[in-house]
């Protein structure tokens, strides 16, 4: 045994799956993005026509913008709430455990169920807000309603991440701070937050990439409407591909999504120093 590392053969199943279910479809999509194909017959090469059309497509640009708004706003909403609840729920008190487990309930519901539930709740004639704001019917509000629903669904998950991480912070740090006379807020700012740094990165990457590819919630909740107010990029791709059957053009949009998603996680990793991630705890 010259090396402690496992043999490279161990990676074969993972690479096989990746090649078959991620790399191969991606290559096919890149190929399709240079063709015109309505789903019938065989794809016909049309050079860069889909790509030049994409550059001129005002609807595609608008849907990229909506995707970015959705991404940033849902990060801004979810992160502070999940962080605070997570740290609070990390306490060992019994009441906190009970409340947390109630709070984690949305985690148990499927996305489709959540979207249908909110759709019924926000129905303008029979919902809970009759004569209230048109949460799903007003083009200026609908996108934020989508953020609200997504946040309601995913905050518990991120809370769970923060709760686990907060429990792993060594108590000795807090004890030392208490002796030095640090306030509650001071302890949160100078101990908890720095200790949770990598959890914040992980949770942010999940949130940002997750909202880039959010699809099911929006499809069921609004189907991109009213008008195109919530037609985010993945939905624009779906409608182009599976309602309009313009598979070539939809593939071009799909490539943009892949590139955006990859770029996004690379940027977040680099900017946050995720690669140099190391434990700051004593003894490791």
């Amino acid at each position: 045994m010259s090396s402690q590392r496992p043999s490279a053969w161990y990676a074969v199943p993972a690479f096989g799956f990746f090649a078959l279910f991620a790399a191969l479809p991606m290559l096919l999509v890149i190929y399709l993005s240079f063709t015109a194909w309505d789903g019938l017959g065989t794809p016909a090469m049309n050079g860069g026509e889909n790509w030049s059309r994409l550059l001129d497509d005002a609807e595609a640009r608008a849907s990229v913008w909506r995707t970015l708004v959705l991404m940033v706003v849902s990060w801004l909403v979810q992160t502070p709430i999940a962080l605070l609840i997570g740290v609070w729920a990390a306490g060992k008190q019994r009441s906190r455990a009970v409340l947390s487990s109630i709070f984690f309930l949305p985690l148990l519901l499927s996305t489709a169920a959540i979207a249908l539930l909110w759709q019924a709740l926000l129905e303008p004639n029979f919902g809970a807000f009759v004569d209230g704001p048109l949460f799903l019917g007003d083009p200026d509000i609908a996108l934020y309603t989508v953020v609200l629903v997504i946040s309601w669904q995913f905050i518990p998950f991120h809370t769970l991440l923060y709760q686990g991480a907060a429990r792993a912070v060594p108590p000795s740090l807090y004890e030392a701070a208490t002796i030095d006379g640090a306030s509650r807020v001071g302890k949160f700012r100078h101990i908890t937050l720095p200790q949770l740094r990598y959890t914040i990165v992980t949770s942010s990457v999940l949130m940002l990439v997750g909202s880039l590819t959010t699809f099911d919630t929006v499809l069921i909740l609004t189907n991109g409407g009213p008008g195109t107010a919530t037609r985010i990029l993945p939905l624009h791709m779906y409608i182009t591909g599976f309602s309009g059957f313009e598979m070539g053009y939809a593939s071009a949009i799909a490539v943009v999504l892949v590139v955006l998603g990859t770029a996004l996680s690379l940027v977040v990793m680099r900017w946050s120093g995720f690669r140099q991630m190391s434990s700051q705890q004593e003894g490791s």
Partner: protein
Amino acid sequence: MSRRSWVRPLIAMGLVAVTAVVSACGTSGPGETNAGALKIWALEDPVLNKIENKSIDSFKAGGGNASLETFGNDPYKQRLRVAIGSPQAPDLFFNWGGGNLKEYVDAGKVADLTSVLEENKAAKDAFIPSVLDGAKLGGKYYGVPMRGMQPVLLFFNKKVFTEAGAQPPKTWDDLLSLVDTFKGKGITPIALAGNQAWTELMWAEYVLDRVAGPEVFKNIRDSGPAGWKDPAVVESLTKLKDLIDRGAFGSSFASVGYDAGGASTIMAQGKAAMHLMGSWEYTNQLDQSPDFVKNGDLGWVAFPSIPGGKGDAANLVGNVSNFYSATQDSKSLDAAKKFVTSELHKDSYVEALIEAGDVPPVVGAEEKLKKSPNPEYASYIYELVLDSKNFQLSWDQDLPADDATFMLTQLQEFFLGKVSPQQFVDAVAAR
């Protein structure tokens, strides 16, 4: 202890493998159910599927063999697209006729049924000619009607009308004044399930037809998107915009659904006075608000005429019928031809459709329609279609899928007031 350490991962791996295999089977499409049988694909519909299965039994009794597979609406369209031309293709498939079918015909995937219909005069003559023409493309027949006719009607709540002392609209001006009447009473004049574009499309279709007649749309369909530039399109959309701006549909229509029973329920409860919808609305209301229908409060009239318009007030829009078409590459093409020319106009099939509340597209059904669960309504629909000069298939089914999808999006923006009539025309004509 050492035994335990490898048993659990092994079980876990086994479970993952099983799940993967099972889910792969689930998505790999329908398996061979009945080798050698005629494979028929249709939409999921608890009532209709039973009748379809009966027709298959009858076909089997005559020495044939067939099996039915059904799918939900959107998955159906997607699966059909992928399957046609592959070895998994059905032999007979359900469709809407018109431009929707034309895409498949142009790709050479659909069998020409003209000669077999000419040979079986009895089958051809059994159907109402204008309905049979719904699947006629370039002078050839590519489909045979297999279910009821579904024109779009203006439904109204009789009780709400009586209380307001109002009469159902005969003309566009009647409609406009009714809007003011009901608004004054705090009732939404017209229910609209506007979270889906096809409900809004019905308005655009009828208004254009009444303003300019059916030729304008036929020209768009046959000669391409430039046809939208016909001034009649802007004229009709301007009329429609007037209606929207008067508050005819209320303010919340953009998030009201049809599938969830939203628009139908507000009319049944008297919160809205009218509702433009396909003829299936009757059974829908009967299902969702049975008392409303049984008390005789559900009324219906044809779409109002537009004074000075060129379109005949008897013209209809909607789903002409649904059709069975045969795939060109089918190994059982002869059996498929036999099925569509022998089973779909049989008395037993027609009567079963009538008993389920459908209005089948066959000639001389007046007497049979008396056995309908809703004879008055069924006869009304039947006469309406017989008297109509033109029965336009819904635009989204009559245009190629890509143009239809784009047009529906623009129409939703138009109803929200984000796009003017002229901008709508500019956008769809530029496709």
